[in-house]
């Protein structure tokens, strides 16, 4: 069945996105942010979603949480259709799925104290006992490496970006969710702090038994924390596969281009004179057929006429390309 990738394991996927389409109108133009994307995430897995700016990965993340209205398609979380839910039912579902953002300082209300911010999910979820709330807040703040006594009464602006991100992670964890969407959680942080936060996320994942959707534009970061990776371009998925395998032998020309463009901290490696592949087209008027064809050295007539579907070229690796780098075998 086109566009529908069955999990190879026998476990049911925790999250299933089916043919999701998200568009929005800005000043009279329709932006096709997400066009017919289907993917699944198994319980306990980290799926990395990578792509450059404008590819729709953040929109996809928000749409999964129903923070953005989808035009069509379904999102199934643990078998429940989130797109069909409203009001209270949806709010109750939200406790099981959380979100971490890119800008940690903007994610915290500047006028509320850290203790209140981290306790907020508990209040919304109906935990009435203040003592119990304090207890849970203290536990989760310690878990992320912050001293509750020092932190609880202060305001966000007193903390650095890395510490604020820890607070955001604590807030996401306090309700013991099953699934967390991380939307560029380390992009705005200093290099030396990034590693700390990535390690923390891995640690929390192990400790709380989480499933993660990790969205980022930095491939090396995504590879470091993901089991499987999905590459997105202009609203469509190009390639999906296990991390190590995908980066070692990419099947899609775009994935190969991304990998080649990464600056390697080794002076022996001369950066390849980049092929002038130009600018990405606008999501308002994406190219017909395969959206990457305007920048692809392998593009031909077929690519303009027909949009490629995701096919399995190598066990577990799926690519949407008429002329993949690895021939389907």
């Amino acid at each position, binding site marked *: 069945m086109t566009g529908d990738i069955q999990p190879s394991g026998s476990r049911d996927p925790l999250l299933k996105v089916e043919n999701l389409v998200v568009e929005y109108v800005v000043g009279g133009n329709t932006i096709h942010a997400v066009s017919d994307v289907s993917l699944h995430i198994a319980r306990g897995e980290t799926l990395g979603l990578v792509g*450059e*700016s404008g590819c729709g990965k953040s929109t996809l993340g928000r749409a999964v949480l129903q923070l953005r209205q989808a035009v069509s398609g379904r999102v199934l979380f643990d078998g429940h259709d989130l797109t069909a839910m409203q009001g209270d039912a949806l709010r109750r579902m939200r406790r099981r799925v959380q979100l971490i953002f890119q800008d940690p300082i903007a994610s915290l209300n500047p006028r509320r104290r850290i203790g209140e911010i981290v306790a907020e999910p508990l209040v919304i979820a109906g935990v009435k006992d203040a003592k119990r709330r304090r207890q849970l807040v203290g536990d989760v703040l310690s878990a992320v490496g912050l001293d509750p006594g020092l932190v609880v009464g202060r305001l966000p602006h007193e903390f*650095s970006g*890395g*510490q604020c991100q820890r607070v955001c992670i604590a807030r996401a964890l306090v309700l013991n969710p099953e699934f967390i969407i991380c939307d560029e959680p380390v992009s705005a942080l*200093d*290099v*030396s*702090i*990034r*590693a*700390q936060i*990535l*390690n923390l996320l*891995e640690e929390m994942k192990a400790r709380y038994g989480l499933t993660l959707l990790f969205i980022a*534009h*930095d*491939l*090396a*970061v995504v*590879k*470091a*924390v*993901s*089991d499987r990776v999905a590459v997105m371009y202009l609203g469509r998925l190009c390639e999906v596969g296990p*991390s*190590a395998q995908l*980066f070692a032998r990419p099947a899609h020309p775009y994935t190969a*281009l*991304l*990998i*080649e*463009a*990464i*600056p*390697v*901290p*080794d*002076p*022996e*490696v*001369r*950066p390849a*004179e*980049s092929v*002038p*592949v*130009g*600018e*990405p087209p606008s999501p308002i008027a994406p190219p017909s057929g395969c959206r990457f064809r305007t920048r692809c050295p392998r593009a031909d007539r077929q690519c303009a006429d027909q949009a490629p579907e995701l096919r399995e070229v190598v066990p577990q690796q799926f690519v949407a390309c008429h002329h993949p780098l690895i021939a389907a075998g």
Partner: protein
Amino acid sequence: MTGPALLSVENVAVDLPTPRGNLRAVDQVDLSIGAGQTLGIVGESGCGKTMLSRAILQLLPKKARLSGRVMFDGQDLVALGPEPLRKLRGRSLAVVFQDPMTSLNPVLTIGTQLIETLQEHLELDGATARKRSVELLAAVGIPAPEQRLLQYPHQLSGGMRQRVAIAIALSCEPKLLIADEPTTALDVTIQAQILDLLAREQRRRHMAMILITHDLGVVAGRTDEVAVMYAGRIVERAPTPVLFRQMRMPYTAALLAAIPKIDAVPHTPLPAIGGRPPDPTRPVQGCSFSPRCRYAAGECYRTKPALAGAESCDHQYACFHPLASATGFRA
């Protein structure tokens, strides 16, 4: 380094008065760069690299106090008056900033901004300036340059805007280009193109370039010499291949180790640097990196190590226990 230095920064320090006391943004920095060379300055936020570039350009905030000398092409920029400085900037000394959206004037067309610069510094007439602008835009890889002249910055993508900023910077054939995080705000595929463009133009014009970034990967293949900054000081400096072959300052090694590598195995814990970057308003006695350094001991907490090279004057570092040396530790 071959030939006399084009730019020589001598014992420059920048102090900023703040409500919380004096902030030493840049602390006794010595640098030099010759014509046609590329110097990379690497550091995280707050290390003073942007203040240093402002100090070189003499564009510091009003309350800042600068000490030391900045010798450019034989002249001391610190002692120079405002009018000669203004003539120098844009003409011999050019800058490209991080965010092209804010470094380009949003209410003027691209053409106006380019032509203005040309007319001001090179005193070209309108028609010649326009022709030159079109050539420049084409040289930086912007398609349909004539149409672009009439467009406004917001109508172009981030990569395009940065190319325009580079075109403006290069328009008067500067001797030195300072690129302050020129690709940090751009996608990785565009980043590669922009860096290639800068390298190409530099070779063609035999221009010196200072590339300021937080990304060690960016400097690795594209610079002749690298200086690593931390808490306002240069903590290690060496020709690029020498630096990457053997890092002596633990901070440099830790910084390199903390970057996720594309060929690493997934789920390996990254060797993170503990603690937080230093707060310039609360200077630490002794080496600024000592609170976070694995190898810190005794003297590190008391005195600030001076930048010096034990083996050769090419490779200098500020550390009492440099890595993999007689007095140091294995990395």
